[in-house]
């Protein structure tokens, strides 16, 4: 069969497009590996919060203060510009639309610490245009403050409201600067980093260490015998908005 040069070029071009299109579709659709079932990773850091042990009505803020001092988190009086990595909220706000008027009373007095969930399939990582936030092999969702362009797309994508933006220079609002950890500058987004700088030297996160009642458990979710896995086997737990497919690594024991 005789083929003209024009036909050959047309077929070659169409094949190239077809080959490239397949690759493009996979590349665009590729998100982080599934966080639900065991992905074969050796480590996946997770946290279990036992709010029966959390000293809810005594105004304890030890975990909050430990995080704040360890990471130079500013205390900005204007609520619009506040920066927070871990903070306390009433149960009804942490797990919205769950309770009815008949059931709400039992949960009314519960105040829980909430933080970044370091999701298995993080929405923020999916949308970041520069990979300034990414999911590390050991499950920690990281921030690179050198690369962040401050577009705040990750803040729009996070279903938990875990992220804060530096609307103004934070340094004047830091009570004690910890020289071992950088401050951040205006124009970048930040959030809980699971104390990755402490994990690197074998220490647990500051909030976990600071809790006087040992209400925060931290360990390797992939290790069947870790403290967190034992706790999750022993009691029923919930995590925040699991139906969204983010697969959080932070669990709340009932």
């Amino acid at each position, binding site marked *: 069969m005789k083929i003209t040069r024009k036909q050959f070029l047309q077929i070659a071009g169409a094949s190239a497009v077809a080959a490239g299109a397949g690759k493009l579709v996979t590349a665009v659709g590729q998100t982080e590996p599934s966080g639900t079932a065991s992905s074969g990773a050796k480590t996946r850091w997770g946290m279990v919060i036992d709010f029966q042990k959390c000293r809810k009505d005594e105004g304890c803020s030890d975990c909050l203060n430990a995080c704040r001092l360890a990471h130079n988190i500013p205390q900005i009086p204007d609520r619009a510009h506040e920066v927070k990595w871990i903070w306390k909220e009433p149960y009804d706000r942490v797990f919205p639309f769950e309770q009815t008027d008949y059931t709400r009373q039992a949960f009314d007095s519960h105040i829980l610490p909430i933080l970044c969930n370091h999701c298995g399939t993080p929405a923020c990582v999916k949308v970041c245009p520069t990979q300034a936030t990414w999911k590390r092999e050991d499950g920690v969702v990281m921030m690179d403050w050198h690369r962040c362009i401050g577009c705040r797309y990750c803040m729009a994508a996070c279903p938990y409201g875990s992220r804060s933006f530096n609307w103004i220079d934070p340094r004047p609002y830091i009570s*004690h600067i910890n020289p071992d950890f950088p401050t951040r*500058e205006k124009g970048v987004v930040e959030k809980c980093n699971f104390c990755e700088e402490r994990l690197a030297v074998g220490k647990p996160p500051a909030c976990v260490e600071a809790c006087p009642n040992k209400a925060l458990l931290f360990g390797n979710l992939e290790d069947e015998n870790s403290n967190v896995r034992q706790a999750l086997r022993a009691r029923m737990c919930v995590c925040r908005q699991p139906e969204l497919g983010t697969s959080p690594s932070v669990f709340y024991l009932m």
Partner: protein
Amino acid sequence: MRDRLLIFSGLALFVFFVTWPVWHGVAARTSAAGPKLELPKLEKNCVAPREYMRTSHMSLLINWRENAVRNNQLRYRAYNGKTYDVSLSRTCLGQCHGTREKFCDRCHSYAAVSGPYCWNCHNDIPKGVTTPGATSSGVVAKLTGSAP
């Protein structure tokens, strides 16, 4: 020559602006002497050959940054086999160069290199802390109540 006034005043303005650096510098009495660096007292070797540090310390810093933040490589093996902690505040300043004022700023101010904004986030060594390698982690430990 109706526009004589406009032309000559424009010309005068031009000369004024073009020669600004010259007479402004003279008026400010800048000296021609070069920057005086305070070299580290205890460390005798740089993390990389001295000439490389002179020309490309920014490359080294960016490599350190990328590897430490994104690849979790927190130790650096130098050309002479010595290992260093990858940290701007603890190693570059704390272990070797003291404060930014004593070292980095000396050349940067002289050469008007204002680009690097490292210090907007990274901590300079606080005043009074002179021992290389010393940081105030003890202070933090006291504040958080955790043991050092």
